[in-house]
């Protein structure tokens, strides 16, 4: 088990290395000048040049890369070129909202999607199946910002049940947190529910055709026990996998949702950083999201063994 984890962690090193080189090169080839952003509209070329010098942007590429990479290995991700704050501080301030919303989204999604998928598979080709599948295809078909606007219109503006926007950390009161987090989470969950419900259904359909399900039925086991005790656990691995790979989708959704609901999370941080060419922040964020992605998928892989005793690492 620990050997396996160690091996997997070692395997992430080349991945993160490739990501960092790739991102570094991509950014340095991208037009844009952080110095110009810093200095504002009225700066003259000479002023820009001096600022560029002081930011180290005039050094040769490989020098810049090695400097950044060396510092990063020591846990120093540098300072933002624009706001001059420590990148790690910036990121850790912004991580909380995103993580909380993401966790809530995953919980909502799993609670909704898994039963939906199970029932759809059980009543294969019935109207319930059709309804679940239609919903899930619809979930893929509507841009996430439109879903956000519609939810705001209904629940925040018409019904006034929850605030329009904003974020409060759970430390400021759970009520405050939930009332603000529920709409963004639901917005994000739409596509996630669609994804998980589809996978649950497909996986369950496959499992329900297995011999041991026939065995269970031949034992006179009740249908709900067949579905949830015998089938669902066997169907779990692909469902977990899609939760893991769907995480990338979640990050995409977060970028948009944070704008619509004004949540100070890492999605907006990254988009702002890209649009402002704030290299250290972009590099740290992409590495961080890549790292999270890899870790989430490692966790997912490890969690397989919880559901399937045949899988041992």
């Amino acid at each position, binding site marked *: 088990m620990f050997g396996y984890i160690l091996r997997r962690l070692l395997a992430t090193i080349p991945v993160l290395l490739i990501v960092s080189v790739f991102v570094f090169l991509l950014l340095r080839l991208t037009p844009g000048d952080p110095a*110009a952003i810093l200095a504002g509209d009225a700066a003259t070329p000479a002023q820009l040049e001096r600022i560029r010098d002081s930011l180290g942007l005039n050094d040769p590429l490989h020098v810049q890369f090695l400097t950044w990479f060396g510092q990063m290995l020591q846990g120093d991700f540098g300072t933002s070129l624009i706001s001059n704050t420590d990148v790690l501080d910036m990121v850790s*301030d912004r991580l909380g909202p995103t993580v909380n919303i993401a966790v809530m989204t995953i919980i909502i999604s799993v609670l909704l999607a898994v039963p939906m998928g199970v029932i759809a598979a059980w009543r294969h080709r019935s109207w319930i199946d059709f309804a679940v599948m239609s919903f899930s295809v619809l979930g893929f078909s509507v841009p996430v910002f439109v879903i956000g606007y519609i939810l705001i219109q209904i629940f925040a503006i018409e019904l006034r049940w929850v605030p329009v926007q904003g974020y409060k*950390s759970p*430390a400021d009161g759970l009520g405050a947190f939930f009332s603000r987090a529920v709409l963004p989470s639901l917005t994000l969950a739409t596509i996630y529910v669609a994804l998980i419900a589809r996978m649950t259904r497909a996986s369950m359909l496959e499992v329900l055709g297995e011999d041991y399900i026939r065995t269970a039925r031949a034992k006179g086991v009740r249908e709900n026990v067949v579905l949830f005790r015998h089938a669902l656990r066997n169907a779990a691995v692909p469902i977990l996998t899609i939760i893991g790979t769907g995480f990338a989708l979640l990050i995409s959704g977060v970028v948009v949702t944070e704008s619509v609901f004004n949540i100070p999370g890492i999605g907006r941080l990254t988009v702002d950083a890209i649009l402002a*060419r704030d290299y250290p922040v972009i590099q740290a964020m992409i590495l961080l999201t890549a790292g999270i992605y890899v870790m989430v998928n490692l966790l997912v892989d490890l969690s397989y063994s919880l559901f399937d005793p045949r899988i041992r690492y």
Partner: protein
Amino acid sequence: MKAIRTGLPVTRTLAATLLASSALLTPAQAQEETTITAVMHSGLRVLDPVITTAHITRNHGYMIYDVLTAVDEDFTPQPQMADWQVSDDQLTYTFTLRDGLMFHDGAPVTAADAVASLKRWGQKDSGGQLIFDVTASLEATDDKTLVWTLSQPFAPLMDVISKQSAVPPFIMPARVAETSADETITEYVGSGPFVFNEEEYEPGVSVTYEKFDDYVPREGEPSWMAGGKVVNVDRVVWTTMPDNLTAMNALAAGEIDYLEQVQIDLMPILDAAPDVTVEMRDPLGYVTIGRPNFLHPPFDNKLVRQAAAAALGQEQMLATMQGDPEYYKVCGAIFGCATPLGDQAASETLVAPNPEASKALLAEAGYDGTPIVLMAPTDVISLSNQPVVAAQALREGGFEVDMQSMDWQSVVQRRAQQAPIGEGGWNMFFTNWMVPEISDPLINVMVNGRGDDGWFGWPDDPQIEEMRSAYVAATDAETQKAIAVQIQEHVMDNVNYLMMGEYLIPQARRTVIENMIPSPVPVFWAMTKAE
């Protein structure tokens, strides 16, 4: 390393959740504090008001710093931190700091602090540079007195150091002001009416200011940045909302108190909200301009520039940007319509498009149909419409237009390129200014004619430089005005830039916010919140 770093906030969040669940029933705040939550036009990311000209950073500067002198709403310099006297030969300015000035860390403000701050500012600000070009000495003679000695008279000196915008000379502690002018400061201590809360600062998202209890306001009614800055609220929180619609809805729902800029088309949303007042804070407003590149064909040819001026029409552009005619003004005054130097001379061609005239000028110039590269930013709403409208108008006027979409940062980077068009250069871009930023020939960077040392577009225009020198030398307002009109006429003829008109952006506040003074910079002193 990653796992550890990412793990932290999660555990923190979980712990916080547990704490919060026990704290859920206790009342939120024992004593009632007055907090103003304001949505500003942009996120605060740069905290050094000298190194950047960004409006949001300037606004931040006015919150936590103070200035020696400031113009009032009549553009007249008034004492703020200091009174001043000018010697009869116009060569010596003596400033005397008033009593009770104190930095947020408790140290008194001294003349030495002011000298250091002025010197740093003088390296960055173009007006400041001109003053320092003629400065013999600037020194603190005692804790409260500083003496500025010039080698030759500089008539607009008080106008420059009292200006409201782009970079005003904010007074910082000497140790902070000693930071190189090319690096951003790292300590944010001022002597202004508000204290910057560094703990709660999230770059680009929100910034919190607390009332500075030890601030001693000047006597007198506040007028723009002059007068008494009496703070009547405990906290001011600026946040950013990337989505205009969300901000509108938040204001209508009472979740925020103040919205600095209201998108005019969306005003009907606020009409439905009874507790919200929409108004004009800043009657001067903004201008939108187009800048041709003088280095490369076809805009190196004056006739082609004139053709562009003929092809474009202010009305079309402003109407597309604003919609409601109440919020824009067709006006060709390059120093602003309602400013002392403003004059509309020779600007008739800009009011309405005249494609035929444009075509005639192009024919005369022998325009060969080379497409002009028009840079069009897609991610800044206030700048995304102009190129689209311009492209159509220029095409109708006989131009070939290659409108290249990019994000604003690419525009910012590319407009600094002097290379030919095929090698990453450009022909035209659009931007916006606040009227006080273009209101005289020293502040307005677009009338700079020093070629490569000037602003993007780089006109090498000795004539206009002569006029600017004359403006500096002029000692009375009438001469200044006369020179300004000359510059106006010259700019219209030479088409140094395309003045595309003025527009206004209303603000919106919850009705409980009262006593907000009119000013181009949103002002949080004087303001009260009835609750």
